C-alpha cells in the first residue's frame, strides 16, 4: 500500500528512463531459477568512501539458463571530476584513457535500462549496490528496486559448517576463482570482475541447487 502511494505521488515527477525501469517491476519474476534473468555486475570506484568516492566504471553480464552471451554485455566508463591516485594502482583506470567516457547520469540511465527487473548479483554486493544508490541519490533518484544476491555470502554457504572452519571468514574473488579453477582474466576491471563473478555464480547456483531446477525463493533460503 505504502509503496503504491509513494509511487503514484513521486513517480510522475521522475524522468522517463526511471519510470521505464520502475515499470518493469510490474511484471512478476518467473518462479523457476532456470527462467530467471540474473545480471551479474561489478563497479570500479575511486575508493571506498560512499560520500567522497565515485564510480569509475560499471561492467555487467546477463546470466540465464546457465549461459552468458558475450555480446549482450554492459560496460561503461565514467567521466571523472574527482581523482584518487591511490586506487589507480589497483584497477589501472587513469583519468584520461583510450575508453570513451560518459557522464554519471548517462551511465545510470544505461545501467537501469540494462538491468530492468533482473536479480542483481555481485561479489560483496552490498558495496556495489550502495555505490550505485549513492549515485542515483545525487541525481535525485530513488534506490535500486532489484532483488540482490551476494556471491561471497553464497560461497560461504557451500562450505561445510564445522567448528574447525572459520564460519565468518570472508572470501575474496581470487580465492573462490582458484577453488573453482577459473582463470583470472581482466582482473580489477569492472567487466573482468563481473565476468569472473558470473562464472562463479553459475557454479555456485549449481552447487547450491544440487543440479535441480529449484524455485527462486529457495535461493534466498540457502
Amino acid at each position: 500500500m505504502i509503496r503504491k502511494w509513494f509511487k503514484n505521488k513521486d513517480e510522475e515527477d521522475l524522468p522517463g528512463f526511471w519510470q521505464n525501469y520502475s515499470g518493469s517491476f510490474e511484471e512478476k519474476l518467473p518462479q523457476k531459477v532456470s527462467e530467471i534473468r540474473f545480471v551479474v555486475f561489478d563497479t570500479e570506484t575511486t575508493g571506498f568512501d560512499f560520500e567522497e568516492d565515485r564510480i569509475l566504471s560499471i561492467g555487467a553480464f546477463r546470466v540465464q539458463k546457465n549461459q552468458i552471451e558475450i555480446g549482450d554485455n554492459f560496460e561503461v566508463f565514467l567521466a571523472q571530476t574527482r581523482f584518487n591516485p591511490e586506487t589507480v594502482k589497483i584497477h589501472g583506470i587513469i583519468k584520461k584513457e583510450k575508453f570513451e567516457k560518459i557522464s554519471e547520469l548517462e551511465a545510470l540511465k544505461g545501467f537501469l535500462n540494462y538491468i530492468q527487473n533482473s536479480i542483481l548479483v555481485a561479489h560483496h554486493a552490498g558495496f556495489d549496490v550502495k555505490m550505485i544508490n549513492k549515485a542515483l541519490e545525487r541525481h535525485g533518484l530513488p534506490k535500486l528496486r532489484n532483488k540482490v544476491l551476494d556471491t561471497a555470502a553464497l560461497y560461504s554457504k557451500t562450505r561445510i559448517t564445522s567448528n574447525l572452519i572459520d564460519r565468518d571468514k570472508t572470501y575474496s574473488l581470487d580465492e573462490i576463482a582458484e577453488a573453482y579453477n577459473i582463470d583470472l582474466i581482466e582482473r580489477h576491471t569492472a567487466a573482468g570482475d563481473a565476468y569472473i563473478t558470473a562464472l562463479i555464480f553459475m557454479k555456485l547456483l549449481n552447487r547450491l541447487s544440487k543440479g535441480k531446477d529449484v524455485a527462486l525463493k529457495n535461493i534466498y533460503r540457502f
Partner: protein
Amino acid sequence: MTNSIAARIADFLGKYPPFSLLDETQLNLIAREVRVSYFEQGKAIFLKDEKVHDLFYIVHKGAVDLQKVLENGEPETIDKCDEGDVFGLRPLFAQENYQINAITDEESIIYAIPIGQFKPLATSNAKVGNFLIESFASNTRNPYSSEHRGKLFDDEQEISFKQEALFDLQPVAIVKKMVTVSRETSLKQAAILMSKKKVGSVIVVEDKKPVGIVTDVDFREYVGTGISSIDTPVEKVMTSPVICYSKGITLAQAQLTMMKHNINHICITKDGTPNTKVKGIVSEHDIMVSQGNNPSVLMKAINRASSTPKLNRIQSKVLYLLEGYMKNNIPVTHVSKIIFELNDATIKRTIVRCIDKMDDLAPCDFAWMSLGSQGRKEQLLHTDQDNAIVFEDVPEDKLEETRAYFLKLAKRVTKRLNIIGFEFCPAEMMARNPKYCLSLSEWKQQFTTWITSSGMDDILLCQIFFDFDITYGEVKLTNSISDHIFKTLSENKLFLNRLAVQALRNPSPLGFFRQFLVEEGGEKKDLFDIKKRGIMPLTDAARLLILEHQVKNISNTAERFEKLAQLEQNNKELYLACAYSSKVLLKFRTRQGLKYKNNGRFINLEDLSKEDKVKLKRCFKTIKEVQELIKVRFETAYHT
C-alpha cells in the same frame, strides 16, 4: 558498446584451430557472438537423434565425452574433448539429427558459437573449411593430431587414446612357438635350447600336457647358486603345477594372475587346465611391449609426466582402466590396490614436481600424509583430497619460517591435485591449512588434545586423521605419530568409548520389515546413501577395533577386519564377513560412480537387480552384528 571480455575470448579462440586460421577482425567478430555455457558433470550438451543446434562448441574448461550409441543402447566413448577442442560440427554440414552424444565428463565451461555467423567465414576461408571437413569426417576433434594416435608411448610421452584405452580387455597375443622339453631333459640342454631360440622359459610337457615350467629365474636360483648341477633333469627344479588359462584370457586377467602368483609366464592350454594340450605361452615381457595402456605403463607415464595436464590425462585413463576392471568383475581387492598405487604415484609425482619448483630446498625432513579414503587405500573414484604435512621439530625461532615453506609447498601441491581431479576438501582438511601443517611435536600435541578432550563434533572431524598413510617423505615421522597415538590411547580408554558412540551413529540400514531405509527428505529423497549407511559404519567400526588392538600401519578397512579376524579367533567369522561386506559396498559405490560420473554415493534402488539387493542386505546384517558387538564391548549405552 565496449566489450573487453570479448577480446579475451578472442585470445582464447585464437590459440586453437580453426580459429587460429582467422584474422583478428574476424576473430573479434566471432568472439562477440560466443555464448559461455556452464554444464555440471554428466550433463548432455546434445544427444544422438536430437535435432541439430544452430551452434557448435569448443571446450574452454573441463572435458566432454563424445559417445556413439551401441546397438544395445549402451554408450561407448569414441573421443574425449579437452580444452580447445571443437565438437558438434554436424550442423555446419548437414541438417540431420546428431549422430553421437556429447556428455560432460567433468564440470565444464563450453563456448557455443552460432553457425550463422561462422558459416560465411568457413566457406570463404579454404583453410578453415578444410579443417572443419577433416575434423568432421574423421570424427575426431583435431585431425592434425591424428598422426599421434595409436602410437605406443614414445619419448614425448604422448598418451595414445581410446582405441587402446580398453586394450586391457583385449585377448592377449599368445606366443605359439614356445619351447617344450620332456621331464628328463637336463638343465644344460634346456639352457642351450632357450639360448638358441632366445626365449626366457621352457615348458616341461608329458603327453603334450604341461607339467611344469623352467624360466631364467630358475637358472639363477638353482644353477648359479650351485644347488643343482647342469646335468640335473629339469623336473627337479621346474615350477609345478603350471598356471594355465585358455586362449581367451584378457590382458588384465593375465596381468593380475601374474601379480597374484608372482610369476611372469602363463601357459595357454586348450581348455585352460593343465590337463589338455599346450597351445602357447604368455610372458610378462610380451604384454609389456604389446600394449599402450596398463597399470605398469601408466605408472611409468606418471613417473615421467612433466606437466599437470599430462597427469590429468593419465588419470582419466586410470578411470578407463577402473571401468574395464569393474566390467570384467575383477576382485575389488586387486583393483583397489592397483588404483591406489596409481593415485599414490600421481600424488607423489605432483609433490616431487612441486619440490623441484620451490626456490629453496626443504629446510628439514617432512612427510606428506594422505588421510581418509586415500589413506585407507579405498579411493577408487576421485573424491575429495584430504591431506596433511608433518615436519621435523626445528628450533622455536625457525618454526614459523619452516611452516611457511611447507604451506607454500602444500598450496602448490593441492592446487595441482585439484586440477588433476582430486577436488579440494570442503572442510579444508588439507596440508595448505596452517592447522594441518604442523611439526612433529605439534602433531603429537594435537592428537593428545583430540584424544583427551575432544567433544563429539571434534571426533567426527578428527577421526579421519586416524586413517593416515604416508605418501611421501620421512617414514620415521609418521611412525612416531602412530606410536604417540597408541601411547596416549592406552592412557585414555574413554576416547575409544566416544569413538564407539560415533561408530554407532548410523544404525543398520534395514527397516523393520527388512526394507531399505532411504533418504527421507531433501534432494536425495528416495535414494539410498551407501556411504553413510553402509561404508562409514564399517570404516568406523574397523578403525575403533584396530585402535583398541593398537595395530599400526594397516589403514584399509577390509585389511583391518582381516587382521582382527586373526586377533580375535572367537569373532573370526563376523570379522571376515565385515571384510567381505566392505569390499562389496566399495564395489557397489564404484559401479554407481562410474555409471553416473559422480562419487557414487547415492544409489537409486531401482538400479539394483534382485540379486544385488540380496547381496546388500547380507552386508547390512553384518553391519548390524558388528554394531551389536561394539555396543556390548564399549558399553556405549552409558554414554549416549
